[in-house]
């Protein structure tokens, strides 16, 4: 029953969409059934895959930089009050800023290409990663650290061997938040800096008044988001099977 619940809700939403679209009879709201042929055509002819690959490549590149910068920074912040004192005010200032608003500035600096889009994803995902890595690192049981110190490990070795793995469950929650909000800026950046990618596809179809196509891309983006999030959640559980499970809270803010 609990497994069936989400499916029923989804079917109910689709039914409401179908009935609402049938009642309205408007160009801008095609029925889900009318969207299906476009969806099918897109998935078969392959264009959408190329755009999805372009989008995901940028997401992956932005994420890679975000992880490389955010994890060490967050871990060190969690263990050093001095570093935390420097970084956290900036974090608090910067976290609530809608990152899409920074795209024009990045375009001025880095041009209207891939680099700007990658960097905006990096900026977006780094913040929750730093924040959660820090929470995780700060909460490491003191006696774990003492045990490692008594064994003779250096402070750097303890960060790597004890603090990082102990902080992993919390850190991966930050990564999950990063995936969700990274996806959001990925799409918005492609809508603003139009080149290719899924966000570009949505706006392009709309500009050409191909409304069924617009909806088809939106459905694909939705499914992609779901697949990325649940895929990562499965990975996160595998990586942290040893930890007591806690409910993952995903708060999207972008």
């Amino acid at each position: 029953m609990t497994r069936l619940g989400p499916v029923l809700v989804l079917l109910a939403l689709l039914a409401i969409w179908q009935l609402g679209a049938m009642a309205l009879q408007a160009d801008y709201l095609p029925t889900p059934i009318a969207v299906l042929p476009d969806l099918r055509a897109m998935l078969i002819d392959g264009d959408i895959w190329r755009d999805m690959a372009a989008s995901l490549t940028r997401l992956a590149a932005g994420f890679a930089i975000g992880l490389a910068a955010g994890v060490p920074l967050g871990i060190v912040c969690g263990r050093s009050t001095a570093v935390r004192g420097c970084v956290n005010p900036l974090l608090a200032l910067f976290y609530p800023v809608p990152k899409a608003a920074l795209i024009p500035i990045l375009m001025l600096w880095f041009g209207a290409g891939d680099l700007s889009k990658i960097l905006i994803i990096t900026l977006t995902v780094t913040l929750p990663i730093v924040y959660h890595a820090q929470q995780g690192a700060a909460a490491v049981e003191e006696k774990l650290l003492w045990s490692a110190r008594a064994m003779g490990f250096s402070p750097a070795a303890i960060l790597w061997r004890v603090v990082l793995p102990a902080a992993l469950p919390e850190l991966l929650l930050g990564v999950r938040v990063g995936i969700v909000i990274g996806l959001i800026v990925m799409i918005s950046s492609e809508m603003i800096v139009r080149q290719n990618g899924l966000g570009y596809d949505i706006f392009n179809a709309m500009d050409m008044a191909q409304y069924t196509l617009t909806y088809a891309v939106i459905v694909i983006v939705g499914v992609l988001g779901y697949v990325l999030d649940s895929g990562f959640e499965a990975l996160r559980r595998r990586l942290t099977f040893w930890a007591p499970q806690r409910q993952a809270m995903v708060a999207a803010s972008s």
Partner: protein
Amino acid sequence: MIRLDHVSKSYTRAGSGDTVQALSAITADIADGAFVSIVGPSGCGKSTLLYIVGGFIPATSGAVQVDGRPIAGPGPDRGPVFQEFALFPWKTVRDNIRFGLAQQKLPQGEADRRVDEMLDLVHLRKYADLYPKELSGGMKQRVAIARTLAYRPTTLLMDEPFGALDAHTRAVLQDELLQIWERERKTVLFITHGVDEAVYLSDRILVMSGAPGAIKADIAVDLPRPRLRDQLLRTPRYQELVIEIGHMMDQSR
């Protein structure tokens, strides 16, 4: 030998800013190979004292010397065992025990051999590939003891190690600890608030009183070894010591 020379500890209470003296001029010599317990009421600073000996927290004044040299932080000569077990939850039993050996640059075979030896010592070979969350409290503490013994400290610093266990498991682990100690003859500094536990295990008991923590009595436990629980608990001398030290604890409250 571990020498505590007028070890004092005070700290500033968060909020009020008052200075609280936790330990006042603790002086004692701990002989090599001795099993010494420190008993006292909750909050008397006995765990704080152990953490200072471990080098985990600094003394406000006074000094701790090991074999004549002042300590500079924690070191593998003094191996801690905590009430909270403090196992690395992402490591199996085997890898927890092996953890400290990574620092010792042992040849691969030697490390494996030592881990196996420790698994046998604490009767956990069957459970070597389990993770800490799959273990009972008693098993976790066995792993923690094995993990510390594996890197061969000369002194064990035990901070109420059996305090979180049920009475039966505690008794079993006390006996196992005594067997290990008879074999290895390490110096043990054992913190507990259980007087019967202290008398059963120790050569010597330091009784502390609280606020500020100070050593109130230094009692030699003149009971024969090896100690067999059923015999010992019936011995009048054992009972006398438990009652006598219990009275001291009551008065220091």
